[in-house]
């Protein structure tokens, strides 16, 4: 039985996806392999374990950071954002 489609937003862009399916898996199915970037190396990261163990799929969902996207079911109107890694720290920083 197919889940009904609902609207949601990925990085501000409107999309449709199956209600109740974990967000990280929905995005994988839509070809969105890259879910974030390693905070130190900047290398892309995506879904890995699919069951909450690896923490590689963290997204900001409805304003809350670091949600494991493979554990959060898609809901209507959800706002999903990829988390941008911090900028490098300045070597010297004088006021």
């Amino acid at each position, binding site marked *: 039985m197919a889940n009904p489609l609902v609207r949601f937003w990925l990085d501000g862009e409107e999309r449709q996806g*199956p209600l109740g*399916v*974990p967000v990280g*898996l*929905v995005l*994988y*199915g839509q070809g969105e*392999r*890259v*879910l974030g970037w*390693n905070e130190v190396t900047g*290398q*892309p*990261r*995506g*879904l*890995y*374990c*699919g*069951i*909450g*163990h*690896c923490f*590689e799929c963290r997204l900001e969902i409805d304003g809350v950071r670091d949600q494991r996207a*493979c*554990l*959060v*079911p898609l809901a209507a109107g959800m706002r999903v954002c990829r988390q941008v890694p911090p900028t490098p720290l300045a070597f010297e920083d004088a006021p």
Partner: protein
Amino acid sequence: MSPKRFDAVVVGAGPAGLAAAGVLSRAGYAVLVVDEAPVPGGRLWAQWHRLGSTVWDGAHEVDRLVSALAPGVQWRLSTSVEAIAGSAAEGFQVDLARGGAVGRAVLLATGAAEVPLPIPGWTLPGVLAVGAAQTLWKGWHIPPGRRGIIVGTNPLGFAVAQELLGAGVESLAIVMPPPSMATAHLGSLPQQWDRLFELAAGAPRWAQPVARLLHGRAGWQRMAMRLYPPGGLAVSGARLQLRRQALAVEGGDCVEAVTLQSVDAAGLPAGAPWTEPADFVLLAGGLRPLGELTAQAGVQRGHYDGLGGEVPLVTARLATSRAGLFAAGNVLGVESARVAIAQGRLAGWGMVAHLGGSVPADRWREAEGALELARRDAPFAFQPGLGAARLRHRADSEREVGP
């Protein structure tokens, strides 16, 4: 907010946790089931195996376990348990983040996790732990991709290959992992082949071509590998290429190809490496009991390779070294879901007895018998040496925590 009180808190709604919750709730106890996933079922839910002429359909088994719960069982889904505090006397506290819940007894049933197989390029999006493909396709009907390579030869990899039939995957190969420090624990290629043949002796469907090659005879492995077809053997819809190694996953922003290398019958590289296009890679590094919570809870544990790693020592009725804390399912060692269900029932009765209920003798006999049966009928073992490890675990447990 003052914490809610329960007779029993079950952490993990996989087959073990659900089975225990069934026993406890039907015996009239107030039960809370906590799981970090949004739906119950754990790893059972997306399992799907053809066993001879029958099919093991995990989703169906989950439905059965859930409908066997007595009404009134409370749920906290989408809730991670990070710590267990307190004691049997004052009550165990879990789920501190949301005002807490207190249980007079707690079941640790958090299951197993996949062991990482870190090969070069493994962090590229599109590289998945092999179980993720099971969750994607059998769970949610999302195909993992079109051209895939499974790295590593462990039973879960073969099971997933079989499950992916019908997922629209055009090409799927199973190859060996590359030699490196990160894969050293797997041993040399000939050692990995040996292990595979040992597991194949139990011969589920996927292993039959391999088993046939061997005729179950020891010492034939070298010969078999010399005769092994370079293009691999067809095994449940995938090509099993035992004489190929994946050296690295290649790609810019996600998986585009895999660098492969042929090996000779001694497992040594033969010829130059080449790349083959792929849009997904599944790493099959094996399973280990998820031990974080059992470590945090401070129960006595031991290490058993045959069980997959570090597991609590438990009495025959699955009580840990801390009074009131029980364990069941894959936290006690990686075995099949049917074993987890039987352990869950047994632990459920153990908890009933701990809570002061009376358990008729035939209940124990029934539960212990079901566990034995599930073990005997297991379609395959996840690690070689399971039987011996179980005996050692039992003996150590008896000595350290009691019969």
